[in-house]
């Protein structure tokens, strides 16, 4: 498989009056063509900012301060805004968390999906042709009676249908990479299952790579080939999905998996992680998880935390030095 995306030592900081929030602080990972990568972490771990950095959509007062994002061999960070605009929505597209807020309420959905296609069509757009494409896309994502509904407005659709429309919009230009940021968090579990199945199907149909950003380990297990676990702006463990679920190495990954209440088995007492995630302005020295880690030793405070690598598996933890 060939490399699609390479992120190296990405740092995205937010410059606030009370200090600098190091939302993403040295993140590296790869994504191959056709592969699905899950980025998992709790709120504030930096997973969404990582995605926005790749899209170059980091909101003020945030800024990418260091690192490299290589997409199909090109360094995205050195592109002009015009060049970047040509990539967004065409080569990389994004699906956001809340389908209720990501569609424009005053335009009908056919127009909105059509706009995404028109923007990336060379030459003069021919609306009848675009309309045909819109219909086939919306049919492809499972909107019933598309011809009748194409001029309906977002509020006339349910949450699940809106997310289907968003997904349709994101695949309308056959992107190489779809970034899905918590695409099902606002939806019920039976609708979530439908959306995940749709993503799986589209991935096979178009061969797009998927970057799934989520707090839900179950969804990653369901859809992804590789996983990156983030904690406090850093990737603490990264590698093949089967290996990491079978034998998680980082204490945070281990505990995170143990504290999920499972439907398929009983436990007397759930594992929990004591304490709370660190303050992003002044995170602890060394391994940022050490104040909550049951195995923490003095040397976990050192600045250069050991990174263990074995083939595709990466763990940043002193236990494996």
């Amino acid at each position, binding site marked *: 498989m060939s490399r699609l995306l390479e992120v190296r030592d990405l740092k995205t900081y937010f410059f606030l009056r009370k200090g600098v929030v190091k939302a993403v602080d040295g993140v590296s990972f790869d994504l191959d063509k056709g592969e699905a990568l899950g980025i998992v972490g709790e709120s504030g771990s930096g997973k969404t900012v990582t995605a926005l950095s790749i899209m170059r959509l980091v909101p003020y007062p945030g800024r990418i301060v260091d690192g490299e994002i290589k997409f199909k061999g090109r360094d995205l960070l050195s592109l002009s805004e015009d060049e970047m605009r040509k990539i967004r929505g065409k080569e990389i597209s994004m699906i956001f968390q809340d389908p209720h807020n990501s569609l424009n309420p005053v335009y009908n959905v056919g127009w909105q999906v059509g706009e995404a296609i028109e923007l990336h069509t060379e030459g003069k757009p021919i609306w009848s042709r675009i309309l045909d494409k819109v219909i086939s896309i919306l049919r492809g994502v499972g909107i019933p009676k598309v011809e009748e509904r194409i001029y309906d407005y977002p509020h006339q659709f349910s949450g699940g249908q809106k997310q289907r429309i968003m997904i349709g919009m994101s695949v309308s230009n056959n992107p190489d990479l779809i970034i899905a940021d918590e695409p099902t968090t606002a939806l019920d*579990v039976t609708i979530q299952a439908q959306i995940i199945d749709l993503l799986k199907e589209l991935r096979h149909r178009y061969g797009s790579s998927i970057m799934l950003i989520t707090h839900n380990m179950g969804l990653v297990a369901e859809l992804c080939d590789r996983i990156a676990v983030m904690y406090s702006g850093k990737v603490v463990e990264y590698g093949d*999905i089967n290996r990491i679920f079978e034998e998680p190495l980082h204490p945070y990954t281990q505990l995170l998996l143990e504290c999920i209440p499972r439907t398929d088995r009983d436990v007397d007492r759930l594992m929990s992680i004591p304490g709370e995630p660190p303050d992003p302005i002044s995170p602890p020295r060394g391994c940022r998880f050490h104040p909550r880690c049951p195995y923490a030793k003095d040397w976990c405070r050192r600045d250069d935390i050991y990174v263990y690598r074995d083939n595709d598996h990466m763990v940043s933890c002193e236990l494996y030095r």
Partner: protein
Amino acid sequence: MENKVVEVEDLKVYYERGGGLLSKPMYIKAVDGVSFSISRGEVLGLVGESGSGKTSVGKAIAGIVRPTSGKISVLGRDIINLSRGEARRLRPKIQMIFQNPFSSLDPRMRVRDIIVEPLKIAGIKDIDFRVKAAELLEMVGLSEEHLDRFPHQFSGGQRQRIAIARALSTNPELIIADEPTSALDVSIQAQILNLLKELRDKLDLTMLFISHDIGVIRYIADRVAVMYAGKIVELGNKRDVIDEPLHPYTESLLEAVPVPHPSKRRKETIIPGEPPDPINPPSGCRFHPRCPHALDICRTVEPKLIYMDNSRMVACHLYQD
């Protein structure tokens, strides 16, 4: 029966919408004929998707919404038609914990006042409120030093602990917990669930635990009631219902939950469609338009919730003569 703390009989909660000089109002049938009881020391889990009516059931018991019809008795007393004096004595015995700890605590009150407010409302005067508040804080894993702080100085998990302390202040007969961990990260969720479980064992609490997360219900509840479109479709001991669901809806709900392990990927048997319109629910069984086993009778006759054995109930024509 003496050991029944709550008994709910044919509860209906309709919300009026629209209606004016010339048009008739429409009724949203949020809860449409629900019956169950909770014994002393028992935790009943109420599970369902958004719009299934589970929160309205909780609110009706807590006295926040007035039922359209039906009976709710707590400790054998009808609590819908109480005189003011009786309400003052009985209501404090039912306490509620809400989903969002960021909006359920008054930002202008100090923690010490928040926690004992229910006691003051109940008319209790001759105790040292500060000592009582400190005791309660200790019980939920916070300490005396937090007494004089304001809610914004706490994290989500800590705020939920404060909300639990407030709910415990009156030694309630019944606690209604409405998605108490849905707004929290999974590592914090585990802390709160463990706290609730400990308190329940220590204080012999009786609880109605409302959640959309079947894993959480399996962990915390003894029995579970599954709601769909305003009705209970299945009720029984949690292991029976979750390990061997009888109702096709329960079955599909369980199948839709992603298990956090890649070897347990879901088979592609998801239910199509979406929950019905609560103003105009389908005739017969409300699940029939989505049900893979629907029979002719399901379209016309509403199935009754009947006993399968002495602890298990299901409302489905597949199990009725």
